[in-house]
C-alpha cells in the first residue's frame, strides 16, 4: 500500500481521541468489558465515535471535527456521559490516566479482531504491555507541505505537552518516579520518536517509499512517532499526551495545541532547523521524568530553563491567538494547574500518599472521569 494523498481539511480544525481505561467496581483493576460497552453504545446518538482498542479493557472515544475549544468540550462531555451511563448498567467504571496503576500485563486479553491479533503476534508481550492510554489531537492543515512545517514547529513544544498531560506515575503497582511512564512503553516500539526532518510532502513520499521498500512499514499506522501526519484526514496528529483524568483537561490540552498551531502558522516565530532535534530526546526525557520541574533546553539558544516557567511563558506567547480561537477558558484551566497543584501525575501521587491503597486511587480518579469530584 503506497502513501495515500493528503486530504483537504479545515485549517486549524480540531479533533480529539481519548483511550480510556475500563475498570471493575470491586478492586478497580482493569475489566475486560470493551465488547459489552460497544454493544450498549450501539444505537446511541453521540457526536463522535466510540471504538474498541487492542486489549479488552480499553475503549477509544473521539470527537467529530470541531472548530474550537467549547465545541470539543461539549462533544467530549456528551460522549463521556453516554459511556458512563452504559458503564453503569454493566457495573464497570471508566477512568482516565496514562497507565493503570496496578494492572498486570500478562492478564490483559486481546480484543477479538484480526488486526489486533496480528499486532499481538508481531509484538508479543509488548502489545499487552502497551496497555497504556493516550490522548491524540488532530489539527487540520490546508496542505500537505504546510502540515509537515507545522509538525516540526510543534515538535519544539512536545516537552511542554508531555509535562502538562502526564498522568502515569504508577506502573504494575509501583511508583516509577516518572510523571509519564506511559511514554517509556511507547519508546519500546521500533519507529517511535520523531518524524524525519523533511518539510515537503514530496520528500516525505520519497522517505515513505524507501521505508516501504525495505518492508519495514506497510502504512502510516506502523509509525509510532510523537507527531505524525495523517494524510487520510488532512491533519497532523499529536500523540504524546497521556489521557488526562477529566474531559475538561483533555479539551484544554487540545485547545493549547490549536493555539500553538495558529501562533506558528500566523507569526512564523522561528526558522525550522534539523538541529532543533539535537536536544529533543533530552527534553522529552526531562518532561517524562520530572514533569513541570524538568529542565528544558531551548533548541535555538541552548539556554536551560525550568519547564514550568517555559510552559507559562508559552501561554503568554499564544495569548492573542487564544482570544482569536476562543480558547482562553482552556488555557486558564492549564495555567491554574501549572501554578497550583501541578499535573494529574502529581494529583495521583498525592491521593496515593493519603490513602496508601492504589485501588482507592483508581476509584477517586474514575470519579473525576465520571464528572464527580471525589
Amino acid at each position, binding site marked *: 500500500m503506497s502513501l495515500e494523498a493528503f486530504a483537504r481539511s479545515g485549517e486549524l480544525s480540531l479533533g480529539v481521541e481519548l483511550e480510556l481505561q475500563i475498570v*471493575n467496581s470491586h478492586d478497580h483493576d482493569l475489566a475486560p468489558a470493551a465488547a*459489552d460497552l460497544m454493544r450498549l453504545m450501539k444505537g446511541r446518538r453521540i457526536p463522535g465515535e466510540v471504538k474498541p482498542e487492542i486489549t479488552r479493557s480499553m475503549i477509544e472515544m473521539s470527537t467529530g471535527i470541531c472548530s474550537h475549544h467549547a465545541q470539543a468540550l461539549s462533544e467530549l462531555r456528551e460522549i463521556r456521559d453516554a459511556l458512563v451511563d452504559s458503564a453503569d448498567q*454493566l*457495573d464497570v467504571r471508566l477512568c482516565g490516566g496514562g497507565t493503570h496503576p496496578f494492572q*498486570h500485563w500478562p*492478564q490483559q*486479553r486481546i480484543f*477479538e479482531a484480526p488486526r489486533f491479533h496480528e499486532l499481538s503476534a508481531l509484538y508479543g508481550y509488548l502489545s499487552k504491555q502497551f496497555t497504556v492510554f493516550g490522548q491524540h489531537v488532530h489539527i487540520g492543515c490546508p496542505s500537505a507541505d504546510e502540515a509537515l512545517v507545522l509538525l516540526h514547529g510543534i515538535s519544539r513544544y512536545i516537552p511542554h505537552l508531555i509535562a502538562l498531560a502526564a498522568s502515569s506515575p504508577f506502573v504494575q503497582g509501583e511508583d516509577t518516579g516518572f510523571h509519564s511512564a506511559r511514554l517509556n512503553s511507547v519508546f519500546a516500539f521500533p519507529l517511535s520518536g520523531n518524524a524525519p526532518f523533511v518539510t515537503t510532502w514530496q520528500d516525505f513520499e520519497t522517505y515513505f517509499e524507501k521505508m516501504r521498500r525495505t518492508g519495514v512499514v506497510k502504512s502510516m499506522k506502523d509509525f509510532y512517532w510523537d507527531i505524525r501526519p495523517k494524510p487520510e484526514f488532512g491533519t497532523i496528529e499529536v500523540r504524546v499526551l497521556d489521557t488526562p483524568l477529566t474531559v475538561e483537561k483533555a479539551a484544554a490540552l487540545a485547545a493549547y495545541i490549536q493555539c500553538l498551531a495558529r501562533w506558528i502558522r500566523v507569526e512564523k516565530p522561528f526558522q525550522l532547523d534539523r538541529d532543533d532535534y539535537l536536544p529533543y530526546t533530552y527534553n522529552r526525557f526531562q518532561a517524562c521524568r520530572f514533569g513541570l520541574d524538568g529542565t528544558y533546553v531551548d533548541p535555538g539558544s541552548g539556554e536551560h530553563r525550568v519547564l514550568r516557567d517555559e510552559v507559562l511563558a508559552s501561554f503568554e506567547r499564544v495569548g492573542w491567538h487564544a482570544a482569536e480561537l476562543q480558547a482562553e477558558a482552556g488555557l486558564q484551566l492549564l495555567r491554574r494547574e501549572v501554578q497550583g497543584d501541578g499535573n494529574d501525575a502529581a494529583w495521583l501521587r498525592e491521593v496515593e500518599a493519603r490513602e496508601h*491503597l492504589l485501588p482507592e486511587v483508581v476509584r477517586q480518579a474514575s470519579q473525576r472521569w465520571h464528572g464527580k469530584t471525589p
Partner: protein
Amino acid sequence: MSPDGFMATRWLAILAHPPEALFVITAMLVAGALAGEFIARTTRLPRLVGYTAAGCVAAAVGLGAPQPLSGAARVLVDLAMALLLFEIGSRVHLRWLRRNPGLLATSLAEALLGALAVAAALLALDQSPATAATCAILAMPASAAVAGRVALELGAEGQVTQRMALLTAMNTLYAVLALSVLRLWWVTGQEPHVLAALTVLAQSFFGSLLLAAVLAGAVALAARRLDLRDENAVLLLLGLVVLAVMAARWLQLSTLLVPLLAGLLLRNTTERPWVWPRHFGTAGGVLVLMLFIIVGASWSPQVLVAGGIAALALVAARGLGKAAAVLVLSRWSRCSLRQGLALSITLTPLSATALVMLSDLMQAAPQLAGTAAPIVLTSIALLELVGPIAVQLALRFAGEVGDSPRRRRQES
C-alpha cells in the same frame, strides 16, 4: 453442640477422640488436595472437582457425612460458607440493581421461576405440597461455593462472572428468607400463635442484620488500619468472620445470613475498595477444600434410591426455570444471548448452601424436612460433579477465561 448431637455418627465419634479425629480429617485433606492436583494436572477441570470426588469416594466406602450435618463437619461447612458468602456479598453493588432494572427483574424471576418449576414438577410427581414447597425453596440458591471457586481458579472476569456473583448472592438471600417464612407457616399451621412466630422471625432477621453490621464495622475498621492484602493481616479478618459465625450459632441466627449480610453491608455502605486475598488466602483455602469434600461425602446409596426420579425432576425443572427467566430477560438486562445462556448455566450447581439450609430445617422441623431431604440430597449428589464442570464450560463459552488458567492473582 446441636440437639441431635447424640446421633452415633462417625463425625461425632471422631470429635470424641481428638487424635483419631485429627488423623481422619488430615487424611481427608491430603486425599482431597491430591485428587485436586491430579484433576488439575491431567484435565482442564477445576481442582474442586477433585476435592468433591475425594468426598464421593469417602461416602462410597461408608465415611459419608452425617445428615443433618453435625459436629466437626457442620463447623467446617459453616466456617467455609461464611468466608465464601461474606466475600460474595462484599463484591455485590446493590446500586447495580437500581441502575439496571432488567437485572433486578432477572434476579427476582430466576429465583421465583426456578422455585415454581420445581414445585410444579414435584406436585406432578404426587409429592405433598409441603414437600414440594420445601424442595422449591431449598433449590432456589445457586452455589456460592462453586461459583466463587471456579471463577477464582480460572481467573474468570467479565459480565457473566460478575452477574453470577450478584444473582447467587441475591438468590441465597431470598432462599434463606423464604425458608424462614416456610418454617413460620409450618409452625403456625400446627399451632395458632401467628404473632409469636412473627416475632421470632423478626428477631432472627434483625438479629442477623445487627450482628452483620457489627462484623462489617469491625472489618472496615481493621481494613483501614492494616493492609489486608497481606496474608498475615488477613488472618485477623478470618478470625472476625469466624467469631461472628460462632456468635450466630450461639444466638441461633442463620449462619448463612449473617456473613452474607455483613459482606453486603460492607460493600454498600462504604465506597473504599476492600481488597483481601480471594477466599482469605491459604487458611480460607483449606476450609473451602474441606467444604467440597464434605459436600461430596453427603450422599449414600440409600439416599440416592429414595431421592430417585423426584430428584431428577427437581434438577431438570430448576435448570429450565432459571434458564428461561435469564434468557427471556437477557436483552432487558443488557447482556447478549450468548452471555445469557452462559449465565443460566452458571446458576445450575446446587451445593453447600442448600445442604446447610436442609440441615437447619432437619433440626428445626424434622417432619417438614423428612420427605424433602432425600430429594434434595440426591439432587446435590447429581450436580456436585456436573455443576462445576458446567460452570467452567459456561465461563469459557462466554469468553471470560484468560489465556493462562494459573494466572497470578490480582491482589498483590
